[in-house]
C-alpha cells in the first residue's frame, strides 16, 4: 500500500521541517497524503494499476520541493526556522561583528587587544560558528548546509582578506597598531636620546650610558624626564638612608636597587637607579652589561639625603645641559607626536570604516548570489533516492 506516496510524504516533511510550525507541518502532510489517497483511489477505480496510479498522482502533484515551496509561501513560516538554524545564523553574525569590532579595538587602541588575542579569538569564534553552522545544516537540510558552509567560508576568507588587504596594509608606514606605543617611545628615552645627543654632544656619553640601562629598569628614563627623576629620588632616598644601606627596597617593579649619585669629579656623572639582585652594584652592572669598564672605575658618593642627591644631580646637569632647550625640544616632540597620532587615528578610522562598509557590501552581494545559485540546485542526494525508489 502506498509506498511511493509515503516516500513522497517523507520527502515533503523533510523540506518543511524547521520551516513550518510542527502542528501546521503535520496537518499539511496529512492533507497531502489524503489528497494522494483520494486521487489514487479514483484512478484505481478507473482501472489503473495501483502502482501506476500512485506514480500518476505524484506526477500530478509535482515534485516535493516545489510542493514544499508552495506550502511555505502560502502558510505561516516559522519565524526563524529551526532552533539550530537560528543558532548558526546568530553565531555567524556574532563572529563577524566580534571580529570586526575586535579588529577596530586592536587598531585604534580603544582597549588592550593584541594581534595574537585577535587571531586566537577570531579562530575560536569562527571555528565555533562554523561547527555550529555545519551541524545545523546537517541536521536540518543539506541545502542549508551548503548555504551556511558557503557563508562561513566567505566570512573567513573575507575577514582574512580584510586583515591582509585592509587598513593595516594601507597604513603600513604609519603602523597604526603601535600608535600608542610609538607615542610612548617618542616621549621616552629613545627618541629623546637620539635628538638630545645630536643637540648636546657634550652629554652624549652620560645619556647613552643611561640609555643602555633601558633594558634593566624603568627608572633610567628619569634622567631625561627631570620632574619624574626628582620625584623618584625623593621617594627612594629616604628609604635608602633609613636602611643605612645602599639597598633600596620599594614595592612595585623596583624591588631592590641602588640609588647611586656619582661623584661630580668622576668622568661619568649621573644618577643611576637600577634593580639589584643581591650582588654588589658593581658586580651586578658588570654581569648585566658584560662591561668591566667604566663601571668599576666610577667613584661613588652615597647620598646622605634626597635633597643632596637632587642637588648634586642638578649641579651636574645645569653645568652640562640646557634644560630650557631640552624642555622646548621635548614639548616639540610631544606636540609632533600628538598631531601625528591624531591624524593617523582619524585616517585609520575613516579608512577602516570605508573598508568595513565595502567589505560588508561585497560579502552581502557574494552571499546573495551564492544563495541564489545554491537555492536553484536541487538537493541531488534526496532526489536521487526518491527517483530511484520511484523508478
Amino acid at each position, binding site marked *: 500500500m502506498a509506498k511511493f506516496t509515503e516516500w513522497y510524504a517523507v520527502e515533503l516533511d523533510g523540506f518543511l521541517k524547521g520551516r513550518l510550525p510542527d502542528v501546521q507541518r503535520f496537518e499539511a502532510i*496529512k492533507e497531502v497524503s489524503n489528497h494522494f489517497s483520494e486521487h489514487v483511489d479514483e484512478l484505481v477505480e478507473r482501472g489503473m494499476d495501483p502502482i501506476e496510479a500512485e506514480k500518476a498522482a505524484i506526477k500530478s502533484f509535482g515534485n516535493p520541493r516545489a510542493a514544499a515551496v508552495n506550502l511555505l509561501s502560502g502558510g505561516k513560516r516559522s519565524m526563524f526556522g529551526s532552533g539550530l538554524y537560528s543558532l548558526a545564523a546568530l553565531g555567524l553574525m556574532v563572529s563577524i561583528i566580534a571580529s570586526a569590532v575586535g579588529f577596530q579595538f586592536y587598531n585604534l587602541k580603544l582597549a588592550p587587544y593584541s594581534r595574537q588575542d585577535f587571531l586566537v579569538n577570531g579562530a575560536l569564534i569562527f571555528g565555533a560558528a562554523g561547527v555550529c553552522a555545519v551541524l545545523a545544516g546537517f541536521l536540518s537540510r543539506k541545502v542549508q548546509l551548503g548555504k551556511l558552509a558557503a557563508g562561513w567560508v566567505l566570512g573567513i576568507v573575507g575577514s582574512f582578506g580584510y586583515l591582509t588587504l585592509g587598513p593595516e596594509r594601507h597604513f603600513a608606514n604609519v603602523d597604526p597598531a603601535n600608535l600608542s606605543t610609538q607615542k610612548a617611545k617618542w616621549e621616552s628615552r629613545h627618541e629623546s636620546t637620539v635628538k638630545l645627543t645630536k643637540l648636546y654632544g657634550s652629554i652624549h656619553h652620560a645619556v647613552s650610558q643611561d640609555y643602555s640601562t633601558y633594558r634593566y629598569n624603568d627608572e633610567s628614563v628619569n634622567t631625561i624626564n627631570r620632574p619624574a627623576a626628582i620625584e623618584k629620588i625623593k621617594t627612594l632616598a629616604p628609604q635608602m638612608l633609613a636602611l643605612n644601606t645602599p639597598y633600596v627596597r620599594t614595592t612595585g617593579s623596583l624591588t631592590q636597587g641602588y640609588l647611586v649619585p656619582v661623584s661630580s669629579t668622576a668622568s661619568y656623572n649621573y644618577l643611576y637607579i637600577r634593580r639589584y639582585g643581591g650582588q654588589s652594584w658593581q658586580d651586578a652592572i658588570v654581569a648585566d652589561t658584560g662591561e668591566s669598564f667604566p663601571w668599576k672605575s666610577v667613584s661613588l658618593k652615597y647620598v646622605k639625603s634626597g635633597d643632596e642627591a637632587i642637588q648634586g644631580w642638578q649641579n651636574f646637569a645645569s653645568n652640562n645641559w640646557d634644560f630650557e632647550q631640552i624642555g622646548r625640544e621635548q614639548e616639540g616632540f610631544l606636540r609632533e607626536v600628538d598631531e601625528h597620532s591624531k591624524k593617523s587615528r582619524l585616517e585609520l578610522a575613516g579608512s577602516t570604516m570605508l573598508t568595513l562598509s565595502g567589505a560588508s557590501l561585497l560579502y552581502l552581494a557574494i552571499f546573495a548570489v551564492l544563495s541564489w545559485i545554491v537555492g536553484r540546485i536541487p538537493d541531488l542526494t534526496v532526489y536521487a533516492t526518491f527517483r530511484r525508489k520511484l523508478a
Partner: protein
Amino acid sequence: MAFKGDNDALILGVLAERSLHGYEISKQIKLLSKGSLTLPENKLYPALHKLEEQAMITSEWVPQHGKPDRKVYSITSDGTKELLEHRSAWKKFVSNINSVMMDAAKKEAN
C-alpha cells in the same frame, strides 16, 4: 477593471455550494469548468491555507470510516462577502471585455 485573485475566487466559488476537502475542490473546479480550468494541485493547499488564515474559509478534520481523517473546508460569512466582491468584479470585467469585443464586432459587421 482587472480581475484579480482568480484561484481564491474559484475556491470560494466551489465552496459556496458545499463543504469540500482539498481533492474534491480541485476536482470540482475542473468539473465545473468542463476541464478548462485546472488549479495546480500543489498550489491548491497553500491557497486554502491562506484563505483560512484570512478567515475566508474554515476547516475541520472529519473522521472517515476505515480511512484517515480528512480536512474539510467551508466558506465563512467573510468568505461569502469576498466571493460576492469577486463575482461583482468578474461581472464588470466580463462586461468591459464584452463592450470592447462586441463593439469591435458590430463595427466590423457594419
